[in-house]
């Protein structure tokens, strides 16, 4: 039998990687239930005893902030007979009572009690708590979980992607971003890896998004053209980015990255200058926020975040919301407006991306030849940048190759 790792070559990948249900099950074991996976943001549970329903792979996870302020990730499955414990999407409570037989759990997962306790004489309560994600860690407010009790730390996992999160937070005058606008949930009949690859595929925008770029007179398409000085970068560890800063620096206008100018956002510009000083603030506002795909499921797309949730080999949900910058109300309104226009089931951009996710899925499932998808674009001009990262031109597939290289290493691990 050909293994998943043999289906990944330097310049091509086998179509079965997207469609085979057995491979999907192996990915759950070796990727989703092992590596660090993004779950939520601390701003979604700002106060003690706040909770919010999130997902980790196909599973529902309750993200709670306990009395002491610690973040916990608990599985939504009663330790008695497996009932879904919580049906609310968010709220504030220190304990959860299962409606089936009344077992009560604290928001750290411990069993607090069961009704008619004499029936449980001798039972060890400490062994009857909720399942939980054993490792929980955060970076700049972004909360990740890992089902592996041991392994690389979150900082090691993030590697060079930490810098992208730092850059993102720096675009906020307070140095903090918030996730407060609620999520759209966009479902696609497609494999999760088609989504991951597409997020930093700089080759597709001029074709898939030609319709909206032309009618909205958007300059985004040019950033992803053959003349663009932007670079596609493999950050290592499966993380990839389209670094648009070379183009924004060439143009040299603050807030041009957001399709606007400094005059239109006086409050934001003033608070950025107050926070970072004139020179640094101007540079940040020229550079803009990152366009980075943090493997396997967190995509930061300048003004919004996408969280990828795999459900089956051919079924994926993309959760998406606008980024909000703490203490920047005038910018936040525009961030929400632009996000609502662009993404989600009816989005000017994402509805067409999703169309391609689904058509590629049907292509690799329906037709057997050619068996391999070709990802060799820009292989001949791949190069190392000053920090040693592999980079290519704006439209090159150096990003997809980086994702697959990491994928292979995870699938080969014992």
């Amino acid at each position, binding site marked *: 039998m050909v293994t998943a790792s043999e289906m990944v070559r330097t310049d091509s990948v086998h179509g079965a990687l997207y469609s085979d249900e057995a491979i999907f099950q192996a990915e759950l074991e070796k990727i989703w239930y092992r590596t660090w996976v993004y779950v939520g943001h601390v701003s979604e549970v700002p106060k003690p005893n706040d909770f919010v329903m999130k997902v980790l792979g196909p599973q529902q996870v309750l993200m709670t902030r306990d009395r002491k302020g610690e973040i916990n990730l608990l599985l939504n499955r009663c330790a008695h007979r497996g009932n879904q414990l919580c049906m609310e999407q968010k709220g504030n409570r220190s304990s959860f009572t299962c409606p089936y037989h009344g077992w009560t759990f604290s928001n750290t997962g411990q069993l607090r009690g069961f009704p008619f306790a004499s029936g449980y004489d001798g039972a060890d309560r400490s062994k009857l708590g909720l399942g939980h994600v054993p490792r929980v860690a955060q970076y700049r407010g972004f909360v990740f979980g890992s089902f592996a009790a041991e392994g690389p730390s979150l900082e090691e996992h993030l590697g060079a992607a930490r810098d992208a999160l730092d850059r993102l937070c720096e675009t906020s005058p307070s140095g903090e971003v918030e996730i407060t606008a609620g*999520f759209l949930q966009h479902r*696609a009949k497609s494999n999760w890896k088609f989504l991951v690859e597409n997020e930093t595929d700089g080759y597709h925008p001029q074709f898939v998004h*030609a*319709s909206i770029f032309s009618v909205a007179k958007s300059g985004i398409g040019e950033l992803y053209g053959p003349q663009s000085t932007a670079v596609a970068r493999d950050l290592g560890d499966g993380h990839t980015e389209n670094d648009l800063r070379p183009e924004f620096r060439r143009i040299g206008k603050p807030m041009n990255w957001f399709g606007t100018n400094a005059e239109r956002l006086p409050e934001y510009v003033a608070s950025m200058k107050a926070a970072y000083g004139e020179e640094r603030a101007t540079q940040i506002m020229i550079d803009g926020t990152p366009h980075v795909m943090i493997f396997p499921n967190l995509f930061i797309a300048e003004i919004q975040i996408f969280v990828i949730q795999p459900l089956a080999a051919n079924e994926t949900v993309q959760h998406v919301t606008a980024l909000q910058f703490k203490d920047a109300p005038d910018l936040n309104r525009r961030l929400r407006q632009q996000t*609502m226009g662009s993404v989600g089931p009816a989005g*000017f951009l994402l*509805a067409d991306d999703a169309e391609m996710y689904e058509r590629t899925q049907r292509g690799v499932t329906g037709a057997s030849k050619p068996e391999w998808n070709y990802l060799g674009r820009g292989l001949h001009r791949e190069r190392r940048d000053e920090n040693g990262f592999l980079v290519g031109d704006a439209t090159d597939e150096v990003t997809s190759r980086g994702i697959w290289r990491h994928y292979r290493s995870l699938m080969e691990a014992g």
Partner: protein
Amino acid sequence: MIEAQDLLLFKEIEQFVYREARLQDSHEYDAWEALWTDDGMYWIPANGDDIDPESQMSIIYDNRSRIALRIKQFHTGKRHTQTPRSRLCRVLSNVELLESTGNEYRVTANSMIFESNARGDTIWGARTEYLLRRESDALKMAKKKVMLSNNDKPLYTLSFLV
């Protein structure tokens, strides 16, 4: 007692919402756009029906210029998710005039929409609220709020006019 004149008004409103539904089903984008007032607002909330669209994400929250942009995007012929177009058949019912004030009418209706496209067949259900306004003798749509029954769940692409 219901006056004949009320019946005529109701019939006029009913014909208006049926016409709107037909123009959507048949992808007559320009004729549909012409139904809107200059301050038209097209709203499809997510995660419930009564969210605050000024602070929370909606599936669609289009002001009049964004409605126009949506229509222009269809006309490029490169709106891939509608190339080919969804085949649509919707049934509109439960049309009810809730309130008339001056030249404005608050109306509700339910719709069941059958969509067939390359992915497969999808059924959408929604309760809809309209704010209609009489402008130089014709009815126009000032607001349309579409409350999808499953707006709190993951949804497949919804790129036709709903």
